[in-house]
């Protein structure tokens, strides 16, 4: 992984306040846990039915019945709980998740998120993504700023089918930290060595840049 992506993930880890209940989506969000101290006070939730998700285990230590929603063989912590899928999403929909970190194909300036379907190309199903995006108390996205073809993932409006409306509060990319505000995207932090002008150029929507100096990560 590029250095910038690693710093993005480390920066996103700082978004987790002590005591939060957090669901980390499949892909880059899952790696956020590697940047938390072993005794950090956080409760990780996984959709298939567990709170208090512990570190991923090597195959020889894996319990065949203990996985997260991405299929990784995880472990328990002191105070883990198992439950069925209805209870798991009851937690999500009733607002007991303080934070979820998700991947994205596109994020719109009003916070719309598209991350489940590319018509004609990719439609494996929606899984638990809609409920996480729509109901976690705070939804942040971790994504590369540009897709593989070099197009911005941050757009004025999503072209792809959306996962949930106006749900994203903050976006962590390999170039910047950007908030979704009532006035659209606003630059909050910049990656080391990246200028606000470069971020503007890579963002397919208006971007508010504050007067004050921006922290870097």
């Amino acid at each position, binding site marked *: 992984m590029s250095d910038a992506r690693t710093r993005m993930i480390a920066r996103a880890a700082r978004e987790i306040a002590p*005591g939060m209940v957090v669901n980390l989506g499949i892909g880059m969000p899952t790696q956020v846990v590697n940047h*938390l101290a072993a005794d950090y006070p956080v*409760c990780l939730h996984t959709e298939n039915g567990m709170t*208090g998700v512990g570190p991923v285990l090597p195959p020889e230590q894996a319990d065949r019945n203990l996985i997260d929603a991405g299929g990784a063989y995880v472990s328990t912590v002191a*105070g883990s709980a198992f439950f069925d899928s209805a*209870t798991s999403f009851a937690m999500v929909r009733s607002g007991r998740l303080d934070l979820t970190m998700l991947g994205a194909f596109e994020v719109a300036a009003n916070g719309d998120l598209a991350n489940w379907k590319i018509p004609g190309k990719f439609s494996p199903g929606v899984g638990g993504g809609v409920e996480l995006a729509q109901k976690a108390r705070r939804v942040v996205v971790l994504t590369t700023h540009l897709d593989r073809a070099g197009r911005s993932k941050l757009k004025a409006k999503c072209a792809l089918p959306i996962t949930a409306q106006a749900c994203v509060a903050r976006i962590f990319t390999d170039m910047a930290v950007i908030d979704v505000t009532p006035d659209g995207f606003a630059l909050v932090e910049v990656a080391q060595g990246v200028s606000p002008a470069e971020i503007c150029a890579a963002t397919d929507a208006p971007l508010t840049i504050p007067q004050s100096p921006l922290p870097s990560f």
Partner: protein
Amino acid sequence: MKLRDKRCDIAAAVGRIKDGDTVMIGGFGVPGTPFTLIQALVQQDARNLTVIKNDANEPGMGVDHLLRSGQVARLITTHLGLNSHAIGLMNSGAIDVEFNPQGILAERIRAGGSGLGGVLSDIGIGTELAEGKQVVKMQGTTYLVEPALRADVALIHADRADTFGNLTYAATAQNFSPLMAMAAACVIVEAETVVLPGEIAANAVQTAGVFVDHVTQLENLSEEYAVVRR
């Protein structure tokens, strides 16, 4: 990863209840009724409460203390058969009572705790219990809309709690408690025993700690918790 310690003083926890709040109270008869939290709420004296509870306990016990202190404006329940005092208050108009079929009350609370708007049910169709309820037709069948119930606060009795709020219940003391423990903005637990995280096995947890806000330790059990001699 370490789980948050939610231990709290009973008075501080119950102090969060405000005039006009909706309060869910676990228990079916004696088992599961949080007698100590109810007494603390009587002391605290929040008024004009809507109480959601399966039953009203018996005269001079549990929820009846809240009825006697005049704190309850409205009671959403299933059956008051063992509390003639509560029936008297209802008949005199001193409290407003809404009766639900027992399993429908359970489902409405569970729906609230599950972030749903409600459930569709055919229970009570053709009886006066269906009167005034919104109906939905689905593939030619008529269902009643049973709206979700949520509360500002839930008062829950547990057999054991860990400091994160993972709970277990004893025997039939489960009843409405796991449902109410999902359905309130603030969930306050009184536990007979409080242990450290990990002392309740992950597979034995009956209410997951993420639903719980405050864990209080019972010092000793008042006689209200004992076997009722009739």
